């Protein structure tokens, strides 16, 4: 496919200080080591202006990723426009994104749900653009599947909790992130040099 095209992904959570900064960094890393050129960003529905939570920074540092420079920001229409994938940490974030910019509904998922769907239907086929692939995954979805909250879709907010809770959250996100990266990379012609070196 057009392997030159850089994927544009935005990850959303509530404060943009705990879950989404970790998911942003992990997904960026997981895609890059598989040779997928991607631009991963994050934003929150609350509109805080802050660094990432110290626990999140510490946990990511333990995984060799520095998110110290991260600054939280409010999710806006502009951030959503032109993205290939919108990934919420919980259903509420997918709803918030769809309410801000209804056109992104078809390519917006919770991380857990997206990984499940990618596993069931497979990654992008051949040169299928990721945005089209995402629309295919969500084609038979009812809005009620994204309403309320669900322990099987939502990644619980670790804010105010211990370092160990952040570590657990990071582990969950990391597993999902690498699974998603594998699915996306499987259908793409990857940058062979990169993938050889990093894998």
């Amino acid at each position: 496919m057009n392997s030159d095209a850089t994927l544009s992904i935005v990850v959303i959570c509530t404060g943009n200080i705990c879950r989404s900064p970790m998911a942003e960094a992990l997904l960026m890393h997981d895609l890059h080591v598989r040779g997928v050129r991607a631009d991963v960003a994050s934003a929150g529905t609350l509109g805080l202006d802050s660094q990432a939570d110290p626990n999140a920074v510490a946990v990511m540092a333990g995984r060799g990723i520095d998110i110290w420079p991260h600054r939280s920001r409010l999710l806006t229409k502009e951030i959503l426009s032109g993205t290939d994938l919108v990934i919420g940490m919980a259903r509420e974030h997918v709803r918030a994104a769809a309410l801000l910019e209804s056109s992104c509904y078809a390519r917006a998922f919770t991380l857990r749900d997206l990984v499940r769907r990618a596993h069931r239907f497979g990654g992008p086929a051949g040169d299928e653009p990721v945005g089209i692939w995402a629309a295919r995954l969500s084609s038979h979805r009812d809005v009620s599947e994204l309403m309320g909250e669900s322990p099987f879709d939502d990644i619980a907010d670790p804010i105010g909790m211990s370092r160990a809770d952040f570590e657990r959250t990071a582990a969950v996100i990391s597993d999902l992130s690498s699974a998603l990266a594998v699915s996306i990379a499987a259908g793409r012609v990857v940058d062979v040099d990169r993938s050889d070196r990093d894998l």
Partner: protein
Amino acid sequence: MLIDMKVLDVPLANEPEATELDLRRVWAIVWLRAPLIIALVVIAVAGTYAYSSFQTDLYQATAKISVVDPNAQAVFNGVQIRVDPKREVDTQIQLLRSPDLRRAVDENLGGDALEISSITVSSVGSTDLISITVSSPSPQVAQAGANAMAELFVKQRRAQVTGSFTDRADELRSKAREIDAEIAKLDGQLADRGTPATLVDVLRSQRSALVVQQADLRTRATQFDVEAATRSGASEVSQTATLPTSPYSPTPRRDASLAGVLALLLGIGLAFLLDRLDNGVRTLEDVENISKGVPVIGGIPIAVRGEKGSRRIDRHSQRMLVPLDSLAAEAYRALASNLRFSALGAKRTRILVTSSEGSEGKSTVTANLAIVLAESGQRVVIVSGDLRKPTVESFFGLDSKESGLTSVLLGDHTLDDAVKPVVLASGRRLAVLPAGPLPQNPAEIVGSAAMGSLLDRLEAAGADFILIDSPPLLPVADSLALSQFADGAVVLCLVGETPRNHLRETLERLQQVNTHIIGVVLNGVPTKGRYSRYYGAYSYGASSYQYKYSQPSDPASSSGDSGSGSKRASKRGSLTGPV
């Protein structure tokens, strides 16, 4: 290969496991009634300990007797028969338990016998020993009792066994005494001068024969005496009781821990029983089990008055417009966001707000939801469809005596006259159509075609959301009649109050008339305490961020719902009535 495995791993790990859910349910039942269980255990342990501690001290002394003569053998027709020791021990135990022996012991001890609490006779393991244990508040009595019993029993046994020999000896002696009389008679005849000389010789030989016979009898009697004296009676005291130094009873610790275990089991059983009896909707899982696919789209936190940990519902605050910076407002914003999101899939303009029974908070939720929707820029009309007990208009200082829904439907007023505008402090507006004069036949009126066309006109006027307040669904037909004109229904239930079967029936009835149920809203969700963990994010909302991050970014950059969090701080308590 490693990576492929991982792809498989993740989705599987996300699948719910039935057993895990069952365990969670069991744990929830126990956890929610933990105070009851703990109280039961504490009462049982403390009560038993106290009761046990106040019991009189009892001392125990044990004497042991051996009952089977190791050489005991019976010879029967020349065949040696080994006595079954087990049988022998059992027999002796029965004999030891006889009331005669007890009487003998009592006589032996005199007045002290009254202090004996109990006597236990039992075999010691598989040996031929029998232990006699006497308990008494007095250690001396216990010891004396045990020893007296052992000794008396052994004596009794010996008397029984030796009895036959002494009896025989006595019999022989009495026969010897009888011979004395005969000898005396012969002596009398011999002393008589008139006795012929020939007879004297006969009498003399008779007499010496009797003397020999008598001597023989006496010898045999003595032999029996010796025999009796050498027989032990096959039982002997093998261990005398020693003076007990410490009481064996009461044992408060042991009793209390036993009572504690029993109370724990009883409490857990009781928790399951109460769970069966408790019909109220208690946890998010309860609702999800009932609603089957209908999502839970909101949880309005409980308004709690009083100190921390109290679960008393503040009935007054629960029925108020909430301050825009409150946890409750956050919950209403989440609910509003769910409603707006549901409208992405299909038209969801006319929303019926209903519940199974009364007093579940329909009007309060309708009013607060309308405000939050209006604050996010939506055009909202509230229609007071409860023509029995109209309340939603009172939140905005309106009454329905003059004009309203009914007067429009009857043609007394125009819709424009009856719909009242409400201006919020932020300058946002919403509209309220009060109920109007109360009719005799509310169900017919709200189910009439005129009602449908009234809603059509409101929608045509550009309303984004028409929130229709309604009477409870189960007791009266109004709500179901109204539902035919609604794009969807929101069903409220009050945590701990709405019976599960009522909620189930409400949902079923709506589905029977093909009303789309947008979702269930839980009212009165606990934010603190034992139950709160069963409501997921509904019980905390975004409060953690409020405490941790006090400086929100510029509210000007926010738009729509997602910006409401940042607006919150600047609009503390900013609701107003109508202008």
